[in-house]
């Protein structure tokens, strides 16, 4: 399996704080690669850097062999890299279908079309409905985004990322703030995608990570201290120390 995303020595500094400190990792094609780490380890910063929203202060990012270090978010999106947000970040006054349709629209030609209503673009709407179906929101397509539940927002985030027909998904804590039932739903959704999409999954829920991920990288203080499969990570001493502190002694 070849590497789809190669991150080498990535750095992000905010004033005196180094949020991402020479982080390196490699995501292979068709794998779910989880990034875990304690609070404040720099996980979201890393995702924002990979999506191009934050400039790198050092290091390089290669996506499918191409150096994308200096590309802006829209350019990365067009190359097939889609992200979802940890804190729900959608067009709240628009319906779920409108939100997802915009994601489809972004990837299907330009939008300098001024006359034909989108409601008559059946292909766009079909694709949007399909994405909603994958996450189980197709029966709520007409609901306004500001009126649906937190769990449904998380599902909408994933649907929008999927609707971009990406080569690779960057999912930033899709289960954040979810109850057990909603988490089960989301794990089910991601299982459906497993093997089909390449996914970088940032997540706090360890049960979800261990059941979904092919490989796991552990981020501590902005550095990747270990990468491996479930057993390797669970048996890694550095990881145990990072999570449990001196109790391991």
């Amino acid at each position, binding site marked *: 399996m070849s590497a789809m995303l190669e991150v080498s020595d990535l750095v992000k500094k905010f004033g005196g704080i180094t949020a991402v400190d020479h982080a390196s990792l490699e995501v292979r094609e068709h794998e779910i690669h989880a990034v875990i780490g304690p609070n404040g380890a720099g996980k979201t910063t890393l995702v924002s850097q990979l999506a191009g929203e934050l400039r790198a202060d050092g290091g390089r990012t290669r996506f499918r062999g191409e150096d994308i270090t200096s590309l802006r978010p829209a350019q990365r999106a067009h190359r097939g890299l889609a992200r979802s947000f940890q804190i729900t970040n959608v067009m709240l006054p628009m319906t779920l279908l409108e939100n997802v349709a915009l994601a489809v629209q*972004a990837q299907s030609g330009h939008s300098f079309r*001024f006359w034909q209503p989108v409601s008559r673009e059946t292909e766009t709407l079909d694709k949007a409905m399909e994405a909603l179906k994958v996450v189980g929101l197709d029966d709520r397509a007409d609901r306004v985004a500001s009126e649906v539940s937190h769990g449904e927002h998380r599902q909408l985030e994933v649907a929008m990322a999927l609707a971009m027909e990406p080569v690779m998904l960057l999912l930033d804590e899709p289960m954040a703030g979810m109850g057990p039932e909603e988490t089960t739903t989301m794990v089910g959704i991601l299982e459906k995608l497993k093997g089909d999409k390449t996914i970088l999954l940032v997540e706090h829920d360890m049960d979800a990570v261990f059941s979904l991920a092919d490989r796991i990288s552990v981020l501590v203080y902005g550095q990747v201290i270990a990468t491996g499969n479930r057993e390797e990570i669970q048996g890694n001493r550095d990881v145990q120390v990072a999570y449990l502190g001196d109790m391991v002694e």
Partner: protein
Amino acid sequence: MKTPRRYLPDSLPGWILWGLLLLLAVGPVIIFFTGQLFYLDLVSRIMILATAAVGLNLIVGYGGMVSFGHAAYFVIGAYSVGIPAYYGFYNGFLHLGLAVGFSALFAVLTGAVSLRTRGIYFIMITLAFAQMMYFTFVSLEEYGGDDGLVILQRSRFPGIDLENDVILYYAIFAVLVLALIFAYRLVWSRFGRVIVGAMHNDRRMQSLGFDTFRYRLTCYVISGVICGIAGFFLANFSNFISPEMTDWSHSAELLLILILGGLGSMLGPVIGSFFFVLVEEWLSTFTVYWQLYFGAMLVAVVLFGRGGINGLFERWRK
């Protein structure tokens, strides 16, 4: 696939707008029979304002770009009539072409700068550009400077005699209807969805892959051109042009019209223009300090009537 009950919120201009347009269409007949010719002028002026408000609504109501300098396009459109007329060129296509061309140029140049800012900075920059236009035209001594210019003849189109006030009325009416239809189609098109999406969440739109700046700039130009066309009619309507047309108070009036009528609605700019001009006329028959009462009214609308007059209608319909 199960088709969704409704894809987009139903915003077909309701019967109020249709009724209003029908009334405007037969307006001159009513005015003729009642003998109140004064109203022909008044309604013509209202429709010119409404056309400009439709243009401004595209960026303010649907794009979240609050321009405080759209009166600049009045002066651009008006001088596109006045300066050629000063040299004896009365061809309407020439006037209209210049109005559209210079409005677009001005919008591209100023938009490229101002759209890099947000919120209060955007408001101030658009105001600054409009003030620059004001002083530019004041400095043009050849064309009357501060005093402006009288236009001896209106723009000439083959088969359309704008010297006739009723024909001018219908020309303005036709342009208002065209602007409304265009705005309506635009808002629900691919382009319109991007503009609305960028108003609600620009960052997310960019991460979806939209270069929102280009879309917003295009919308800004379209808005400017519509206001430039309104300026073209303003010059023809009043047979007079002056830098005063781009005074900041006129930019503010356009925004007031939108707030009163209802931002981001099709009915808003039209009903807002009617309300603004008629209330102004009515109040000024009592007192020269009409603005005091108008201000109080505006405060009431902003505090209690969210969505302006259009919002009241919407709530009432439900």
